[in-house]
């Protein structure tokens, strides 16, 4: 094995120039692919973080069936075991109880439909970043029954802090849910669909309004390491009684976002696919030349008693050496670059920046540091190299020593 290793290694350096060109092209492919994907994935992660931080969180627990039919009748009282599970997990920094429903709002002669969210305002401030959005008034105390209304709603009713808003809705199991509530603060959301119709109130008041004491529609989990999301989700769904509860991640909660990302992603994948195609032809060309040059040598090796399978093994090793070498160089060069652009994200300017800032997000593109990106592309490159090696393999399988040695 040592000798075969040695042979494979030396064979790579037999035609130095060709090998260096081949390795450089593979290196470039790995570098470019990982570099480009880091930004693409980085943007997606940023988008996801933005969207998730706006409203939904990364993970939510509901009563089973709630997401299909978002009615207060599908609310639940969480088991202590569920609360313990969330408390005890270190990856969950906090979890927010919410009771969400719809109601008709009214004031004077005007009415408008609204989303009513009964929440723990302190916790929601951590998730939805409410404090900077408060443009007048203040947060109501946990036990009060005052409202925070969105700026769109306030201007619709021409309301200011201290005015009152009527809520008309349906409570738990058909109870009526009507009341008049003072407005203690006004929030300006960058997203129009939230800004036009969101009403926040302390959860206790909401539970009373909807005749649903202690009941929740959702538990929103806060996590600070999104890269651990999948593992966490798997872990929780194993522990959770899935007959009774449903567990949705942001993909389930924000299907439009998933679609947007998928559509955009396809473009990036195609570009990288084309790049890999070009590289494949380069590798194949190298292997074709190498095979042609070494026919006599192959013939002699088989003549003196080397089994074809062994010979094939050396060739596979040669290819893998080149691929691995190029991948290692590629990853080692791209890693500090990624790290730099993660720490110093590219800052968008002008119009692009404005349109992002309009939604209240920072106009930056940080590079993702996800190691999976690098590993995936190293894997793809090795696969391509192996596929190209099929050519010399087939040549050897067909090789007749006498013919090979006549060349």
């Amino acid at each position, binding site marked *: 094995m040592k*000798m075969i290793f040695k*042979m494979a290694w030396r064979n790579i350096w*037999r035609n130095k120039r060709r090998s260096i060109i081949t390795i450089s092209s593979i290196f470039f492919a790995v570098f470019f692919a990982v570099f480009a994907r880091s930004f693409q994935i980085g943007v997606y992660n940023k988008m996801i973080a933005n969207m998730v931080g706006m409203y939904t969180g990364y993970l939510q627990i509901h009563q089973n069936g709630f997401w299909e039919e978002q009615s207060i009748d599908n609310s639940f009282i969480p088991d202590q075991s569920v609360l313990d599970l969330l408390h005890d997990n270190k990856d969950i920094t906090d979890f927010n109880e919410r009771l969400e429903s719809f109601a008709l709002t009214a004031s004077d002669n005007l009415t408008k439909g609204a989303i009513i969210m009964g929440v723990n305002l302190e916790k929601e401030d951590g998730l939805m970043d409410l404090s900077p959005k408060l443009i007048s008034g203040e947060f109501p105390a946990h036990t009060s029954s005052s409202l925070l209304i969105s700026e769109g709603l306030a201007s619709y009713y021409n309301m200011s802090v201290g005015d009152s808003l009527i809520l008309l809705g349906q409570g738990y199991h058909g109870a009526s849910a009507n009341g008049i509530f003072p407005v203690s603060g006004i929030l300006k959301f960058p997203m129009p669909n939230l800004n036009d119709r969101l009403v926040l109130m302390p959860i206790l008041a909401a539970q009373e309004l909807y005749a649903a004491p202690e009941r929740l529609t959702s538990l929103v989990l806060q996590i600070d390491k999104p890269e651990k999301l999948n593992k966490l989700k798997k872990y929780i769904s194993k522990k959770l009684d899935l007959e009774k509860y449903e567990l949705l991640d942001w993909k389930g909660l924000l299907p439009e976002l998933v679609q947007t990302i998928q559509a955009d992603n396809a473009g990036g994948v195609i570009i990288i696919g084309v790049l890999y195609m070009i590289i494949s032809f380069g590798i194949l060309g190298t292997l074709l030349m190498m095979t042609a040059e070494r026919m006599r*040598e192959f013939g002699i090796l088989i*003549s003196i*008693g080397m*089994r074809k399978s062994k010979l094939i093994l050396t060739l596979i090793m040669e290819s893998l050496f080149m691929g691995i070498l190029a991948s290692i160089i590629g990853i080692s060069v791209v890693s500090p670059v990624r790290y730099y652009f993660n720490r110093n994200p590219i800052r968008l300017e002008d119009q692009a920046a404005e349109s992002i800032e309009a939604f209240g997000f920072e106009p930056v593109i940080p590079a993702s540091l996800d190691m999976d990106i690098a590993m995936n592309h190293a894997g793809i490159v090795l696969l391509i190299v192996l596929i190209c090696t099929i050519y010399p393999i087939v040549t050897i399988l067909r090789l007749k020593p006498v013919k090979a040695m006549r060349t």
Partner: protein
Amino acid sequence: MEIIKTTHLTKVYSNNGLEVKAVNHIDLSIEEGEFTAIVGPSGSGKTTLLNMIGGLDDSTEGTVKIAGTNINSLSENELIDFRLKNIGFVFQAYNLIPVLTAKENVEFIMLLQGLSEKERKQRSEELLNHVGLTDKLDSRPNQLSGGEQQRVAVARALASKPSFILADEPTANLDSHSTSTLLDMMAEMNEKEKVTFLFSTHDQRVIDKARRVITIEDGKIIKDERR
């Protein structure tokens, strides 16, 4: 003991409809310890005959028996293993693996046979000493002259302790000095260690060293003399 026996060995090539009997019903028997040259004009069928004896080429008709084994009935891998065990090859030129040193080239065949590192090292050094290349152990083939390369090839062929050594025009690319060095060495191995050699040649000086000379023409044996 009979090491090589061919029976009605025949090879027919068809060149665009035209049949060429490169080897035509050759019955040949080689005994252990022989030092035999196959001679004949260009195109007479020497290479074709040796290739079939070495199991490198199929026969159209007839059989080759090596040390009692009918090699025509072996599968591809069996035949490769058989060659490794029984036949030492020396080709006309460019015999060696270019990326391995002289010593590694000799070791390589023992590696294929599964010998231990210690045995390989010892035997390869011994053999290269024997062919007078003590100071070239770590040279790559491109740092060796044609004659030196052929001597390494002979050392490699011997390394596997084969039943016989098959050499198709081993001196064709060598000058007269290298030719006689190589031949003297082969003859000495034959005499002292009873290594069986079967080789083809054009070269009268090589023919003069042979102890048996088989002349073929148009694929047939026309003369078989022992000296």
